């Protein structure tokens, strides 16, 4: 069956496909401890086709990508290349099969030239032993770049290029290794609209040359503009593969959402909202957010939703002072907040960062040390540290939050993820925080522990604190939060009150490209 001919009427630039896919994944499954990342996913990749891969955060897209490039090995399933069964066990294997992945962090060297970057490790040998043929490297690089429709000077040092052009170099690098399948992960997230158009021109060229492109994106406009085929993943499963002509943005959203309602996370009661704990007006920061207006009252759990890269963490960090603010007003329980993290901590703001191991905990320090870390000046106003008092405070938190550890003297690194997260939350409890900024509090935590974390958060607000919670799992937002703000591309684009709070609504606001 030749699908592409059928939609040639819609897509004038379509390339007729052969009868076997360039690459085919069948029944791919991949699990990690506690999480089933992929379950029976089958995917054909045809040459000359732009295959869109969409799904929520955590749907399995990045696991699939990693399997394609050889970074992960599938637990089950087969891979066929030109109809022949093959194994992709390493990045070198993937390269041999012509698969190249363009990640968001480029593998480029800043102070080498464009050409040197393209041919890193594969330089053409010169006449004298040990030398390289610079002219040939430059010439070949120019050839590849030209075939992409770019006239970047191959001799230019890479660091002088902007993100968009570095991306082109990354693509050229892949092509120079005879990639026939290009996997691109959110390639337009850092590009201006003009640069995006250039990228799309390039992709159309590649299509003409028979290259297959697997394109992961949240931007529905792009998906419909460029895609020849759309595959939707949800919870590690393939929901379906459709042609753009067969569906609509709303339909796509519907396919991406629609999980069974999970009542485990439902909060038993919603409190009366108290005084305004956090008031943000016109917050802007060089980290990429602008015009943020947010309000959180005591007793509320307010969600901050959006897709990866929409600026949610940046907002939390800017409020806390971890990132520089360029303008805007912040009030904590009516009092203005100026200054950096020490000021925020003193005014009762607690920040639970996204990456608890690298940013939230001093892993080699004990549980007890970590728990009192933000409260040292509170507990010991005369600056004399009394281990007994610290231990008591730590033990109290361990009891209150039910942290599982033989004692407060164990190093924090030996605890499970859920318990580590409790330490980070507990740290701010001891410090007397009244406003908690939580960035992905349940990331990497197994189901049972998630429940406990939400119970802890519920307790926090029941006792009069306020919570602003970032969570990429929309179902959690829906069932735990009182209301939510939705962000997109550095701005708040919407607010959902309790009765409006649904996964579909969140996604619609987060993805819609007007």
């Amino acid at each position, binding site marked *: 069956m030749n699908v592409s001919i059928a939609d040639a009427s819609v897509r004038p630039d379509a390339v007729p496909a052969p009868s076997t896919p360039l690459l085919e994944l069948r029944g791919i499954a991949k699990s990690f401890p506690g999480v089933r990342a992929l379950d029976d996913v089958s995917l054909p990749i045809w040459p000359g086709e732009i295959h869109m891969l969409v799904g929520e955060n955590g749907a399995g897209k990045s696991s699939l990508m990693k399997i394609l490039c050889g970074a992960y090995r599938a637990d089950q399933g087969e891979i066929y290349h030109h109809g022949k069964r093959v194994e992709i066990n390493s990045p070198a294997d993937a390269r041999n099969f012509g698969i190249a992945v363009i990640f968001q962090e480029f593998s480029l060297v800043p102070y080498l030239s464009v050409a040197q970057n393209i041919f890193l490790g594969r330089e053409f040998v010169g006449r004298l032993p040990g030398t390289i043929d610079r002219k040939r490297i430059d010439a070949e690089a120019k050839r590849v770049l030209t075939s992409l429709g770019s006239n970047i000077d191959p001799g230019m040092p890479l660091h002088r290029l902007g993100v968009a052009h570095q991306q082109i170099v990354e693509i050229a690098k892949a092509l120079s290794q005879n990639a026939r399948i290009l996997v691109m992960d959110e390639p337009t997230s850092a590009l201006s609209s003009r640069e995006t158009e250039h990228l799309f021109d390039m992709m159309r060229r590649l299509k003409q040359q028979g290259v297959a492109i697997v394109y992961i994106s949240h931007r529905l406009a792009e998906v419909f503009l460029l895609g020849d085929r759309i595959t939707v993943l949800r919870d590690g499963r393939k929901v379906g593969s459709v042609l753009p002509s067969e569906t609509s943005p709303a339909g796509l959203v519907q396919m991406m959402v629609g999980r069974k309602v999970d009542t485990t996370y439902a909060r038993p009661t919603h409190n009366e909202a108290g005084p305004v704990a956090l008031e943000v007006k016109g917050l802007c920061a060089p980290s990429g957010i602008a015009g943020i207006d947010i309000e959180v009252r005591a007793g509320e759990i307010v969600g901050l939703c959006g897709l990866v890269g929409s600026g949610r963490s940046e907002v939390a960090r800017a409020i*806390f002072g*971890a990132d520089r603010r360029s303008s805007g007003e912040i009030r904590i329980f009516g009092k203005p907040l100026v200054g950096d*993290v*020490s000021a*925020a*901590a*003193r005014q009762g703001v607690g*920040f639970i*960062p996204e990456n608890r*191991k*690298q*940013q*939230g*905990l*001093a*892993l*080699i*320090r004990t549980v*007890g*040390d970590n728990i*009192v*870390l*933000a409260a*040292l*000046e509170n507990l*010991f106003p005369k*600056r*004399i*540290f*009394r*281990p007994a008092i610290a*231990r008591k405070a730590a*033990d109290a938190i*361990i*009891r209150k939050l*039910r*942290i*599982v*550890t*033989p*004692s*407060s*003297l164990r*190093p924090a*690194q030996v605890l499970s993820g859920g318990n580590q997260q409790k330490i980070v939350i507990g*740290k701010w409890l001891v*410090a007397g925080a009244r406003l908690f900024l939580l960035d992905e509090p349940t990331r990497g935590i197994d189901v049972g522990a998630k429940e406990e974390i939400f119970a802890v958060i519920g307790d926090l607000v029941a006792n009069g604190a306020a919570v602003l919670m970032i969570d990429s799992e929309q179902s959690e937002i829906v069932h735990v939060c009182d209301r939510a703000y939705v962000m997109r591309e550095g701005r708040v684009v919407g607010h959902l009150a309790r009765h409006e709070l649904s996964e579909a609504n969140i996604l619609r606001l987060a993805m819609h490209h007007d």
Partner: protein
Amino acid sequence: MTTVETTAASPRFVMSGDLTQLFYRLAAIGLICVALSFLSDAFLTTNNLLNVLRQASLVFFMASGLTLVILTGKIDLSVGATVGLSACLAATVIKSTGSPWLGAVVGIGAGSLVGLANGVLVTRLRIPSFIATYGSLWIVQGITYYYMAGQTIYGFPPGFRALGSGYALGIPIPVYLMAGFLLIGGFFAKRTTYGQQIYAIGANSVAARLSGIPVNSRLVLVFIMSGAMAGLASLVFLARLNSAEGDIGESLTLPTIAAVLIGGTSLFGGIGTVSGTFFGALILTLILNGMNLLAVNANWQPPVTGAIIIFSVWLDLATSARSQASA
């Protein structure tokens, strides 16, 4: 009131990581002493042992301040040069005013200023500490040489000299000072909020900052303290040597770093104790003392010290809890 506890009550005495470290060092000291007493008759004499203690205390003064810097994950390569500068300035003041106290103020003040400069270079100019302090090492040394213009200052008041050469109850005075610093330093590190924050900064400076700790302020503080301690050490040196020359302190950097590292303080920060540094100073001095007693060419001391430094870091990397923590 009884409560059902979900966790075991924290026992009062626990063989914590720090204690095991100290145990190993005590064992090492014991082994070295036993070995040396067999290898040389002169080792176990009172004179020699007191000498070892005195030497160790000189190293310890500088090493204690440096310990704080290394605990934060930074390094101060300029300690030796700072001692030199402080010593020469203090010497001048003592000679001209006759007041050891004034000399002390000047010496410690000079050291603190160098520390402040280092702190600013590292926190404001964001120069990696090993480069910044390497540069300040040379600058300070240059200033010292220029100031001294090749001369030697000698002949200090006997009261002052007692600081370095005197005895009390048969034990050299520097040893008492060392004990004092051990207590004060250990107290600062373990029993003040500043100390707790310093450990946290060394363990994970990002997490420390995100917990509201003013990281830059604390870094400047430890550099100042390192410089001040170097200033203090210079006074004891002056008292002991009864003279000051431009090149005092040049050969001190390596042994100071070695003492800190042998003492179990991790170069990467967050792990270590001042008492460990005490034992490190002792171990290093014993090793060097042994080499002296066995008539090994004194020129072997820097190589041995250098090798010890490399070995300590290697050991730290190979066994560190840190490598497991970086998952």
